[in-house]
């Protein structure tokens, strides 16, 4: 029966239904035909079987669902030694410590701007020796915590905060006060192109026992000022087999800046709205280097970040991280861990 002959309306709805059904099946058939043509063409043109993959590749990328391994079949926590190149200073930084490094490197941490401002102000107004002392205080304030943070880990491999001035201050603490030291300090020679990461422990020890070794933040050159004998050499060497830890610690205690209070280091208790861009707390730097082990509060933000991977690598800094200077206040803790 032709379509045109069927009456559409009427008490008998079956005709309408039949019509509807016929249209529907025609549409479906046409769609199927279209698909058949596509496949036919693909086969004839030779690209139908192109996306078939070989068994080997299939197995290679199969998802693994076993306890103890991830979906690639790899054991957890094997990624401790990853490194990356800082886009700013072009140095190679351990990946798990990249964020704190970057903050300093870009000068955008809360304290970095404060240091920078003070440095600028003091450079303009005051004499160099005074400014050095102030900056020392700043650096000491910001970079280390006192008291509260028991699990201080090695902060990071950032050399930017090391400056010639810091070594001078240590000289002061050692009792070698005198203007002679200060004036001498201006006659530095600078070596270029030293990358502490690439030097071995022996090389480094010999280097640092003879020279200052501090890398300037601004010029990126290494200071070749001959180092003073005795305690200084010990302080500046990077090996941690320092015989008289107690004496060293008492020397280093002197570096405590008077205006730091223990409460400041408990920065997590300070409350600010986490979405504020300004974070007015002074000592939140205290949380640096405490990325793992759950410690280290931020400014009360809903925070997260601690993977525990960095805890182990922080301890083993004697060979890896070549510093011309020891991060002073955290040393007591590190010694505890090492002992």
């Amino acid at each position, binding site marked *: 029966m032709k379509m045109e002959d069927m009456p559409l309306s009427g008490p008998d709805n079956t005709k309408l239904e039949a019509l509807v059904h016929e249209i529907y099946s025609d549409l479906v058939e046409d769609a199927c035909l279209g698909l058949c043509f596509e496949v036919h063409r693909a086969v004839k043109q030779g690209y139908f079987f192109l996306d078939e993959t070989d068994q080997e*590749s299939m197995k290679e990328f199969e998802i693994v669902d076993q306890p103890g391994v991830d979906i690639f079949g790899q054991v957890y926590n094997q990624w401790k030694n*990853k490194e990356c190149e800082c886009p700013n200073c072009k140095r190679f930084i351990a990946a798990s410590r990249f964020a704190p490094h970057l903050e300093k490197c870009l000068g955008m941490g809360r304290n970095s701007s404060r240091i920078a401002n003070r440095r600028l102000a003091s450079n303009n107004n005051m004499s160099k020796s005074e400014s050095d002392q102030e900056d020392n205080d700043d650096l000491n304030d910001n970079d280390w915590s006192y008291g509260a943070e028991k699990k201080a880990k090695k902060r990071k491999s950032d050399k930017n905060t090391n400056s010639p001035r810091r070594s001078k201050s240590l000289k002061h603490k050692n009792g070698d006060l005198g203007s002679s030291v200060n004036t001498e300090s201006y006659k530095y020679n600078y070596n270029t192109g030293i990358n502490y990461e690439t030097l071995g422990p022996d090389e480094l020890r010999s280097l640092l026992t003879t020279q200052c070794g501090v890398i300037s933040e601004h010029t990126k050159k290494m200071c070749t000022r001959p180092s003073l004998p005795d305690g200084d050499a010990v302080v500046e060497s990077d090996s941690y087999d320092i015989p008289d830890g107690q004496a060293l610690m008492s020397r280093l205690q002197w570096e405590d800046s008077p205006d730091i209070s223990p409460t400041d280091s408990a920065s997590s208790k300070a409350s600010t709205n986490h979405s504020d861009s300004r974070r007015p707390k002074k000592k939140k730097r205290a949380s640096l280097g405490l990325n793992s082990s759950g410690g280290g509060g931020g400014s*009360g933000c*809903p925070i*997260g*970040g601690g993977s525990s991977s960095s805890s182990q690598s922080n301890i083993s800094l004697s060979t890896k991280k070549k510093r011309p200077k020891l991060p002073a206040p955290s040393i007591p803790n590190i010694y505890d861990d090492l002992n």
Partner: protein
Amino acid sequence: MSPAGCSHVNGYKVDNWKQNLRVIYQCFVWSGTAETRRRKAKSCICHMCGAHLNRLHSCLYCVFFGCFTKKHIHEHAKNKRHNLAIDLLYGGIYCFVCQDYIYDKDMEQIAKEEQRKAWKLLSVISVPSHLCFFMSTGIGEKYTTWEPTKRELELLRHNPKRRKITTNCTIGLRGLINLGNTCFMNCIVQALTHTPLLRDFFLSDRHKCEMQSNSCLVCEMSQLFQEFYSGHRSPHIPFRLLHLVWTHARHLAGYEQQDAHEFLIAALDVLHRHCKGDTTHDNGKKANNPNHCNCIIDQIFTGGLQSDVTCQVCHGVSTTIDPFWDISLDLPGSSTPFWPLSPGGDGSTVNGESHLSGSTTLTDCLRRFTRPEHLGSSAKIKCGGCHSYQESTKQLTMKKLPIVACFHLKRFEHSAKLRRKITTYVSFPLELDMTPFMASSKESRMNGQYQQTVDVLNNDNKYSLFAVVNHQGTLESGHYTSFIRQHKDQWFKCDDAIITKASIKDVLDSEGYLLFYHKQFLEYE
């Protein structure tokens, strides 16, 4: 001559064959206008049996239509020795000598051109602008799949090893190294790289960079997708991404553990700003108006929140619509009271969530979010109708839903008196229907239709969960992990560098901090 063609067409390719073929395509195969369609419908019937369908073919040598199924065209071919016919439905050329459809390069070229012309004429079809990215010239263009050239075919045949993304494949998944408390960033990156539309945009290489320097975040995002689909097993180190985000969103910079939600908004903002180069595809007009940007970020993430302030005296309503990228929902247990809900709120279990003896659901939170709120005598609004300060009620509803809806459960309380994390369990569904919270639903409610019958056929507001970001720990210190969905029904847990398979139950039982839902059906605008 390609193997797909045949030598028998050579007899046809004489004189004015190209033009003849074009006419056939224009009149009887691809109909671009209503008249041609009518003409085709009227004239295309089998000359032997009068049928309209049955795979009608037209002879290429003379004016004859015959159906294929009843073999009428075959008879004609045999009788007249006209060896070629064209299928009027799809335009394929059939050779009776080869007894198969053949694909001749020249003829296919003509067919393609005519088809394109016809599609261009079909201006009634509008294409959603975000899909414009996938079409080379814009509206009215049929999307054609990729076909390899001869050279490519050769190469592919010589190199049979393939990486195919099947349902059991790890390609598309990759761990991310924690750079020092950057798990908040890693979770957001996982969520973004598993947003289907965003993934399609970047994998189709649709970003055209206009930034001179190397600091375009969108380019970095594109690179990130390349890394995720590279098949590498070792986790990726997103140090460049961190550097770029901190450079462009200075307020975020700082090594301390940060909020994932804050990072999401900042990242979307920077991406949106850097997407300028991609907004020229909208009919060639550049989107100069920042409020009406057409970049991929706005296409996917931007919704409209309608705020109605009703004067209690004259009942005049003042409406504003604000764009949003996420919806922040208060939770019970915070210092602001959660219950009671709005009057007239439907007590039915929407979205199939079960009320397990009082556990809060996402729908509860949404209902609270969209409830009419009496503003109180201390917050009188100047009413345009009464010209005086009056008390009013304010109500928020969704005017326009984004394609990806991100719900932010406000678990971190920072009021003056206390700072804490609210760990109340909020159950969220796998599928979410946002219809009750739309502005349009509210209007019909106000018009007296209290009970909203759920329209099963209306698919506009149906969403599916595809990513969940969770926070474990306290306000001071904690860790972010995420669950993401791949291949329709597979879920994976992303804990920085460790990706493991997860069950749907794991996902739905988790606490939930950021919930990402994707629209199920993309409609034409």
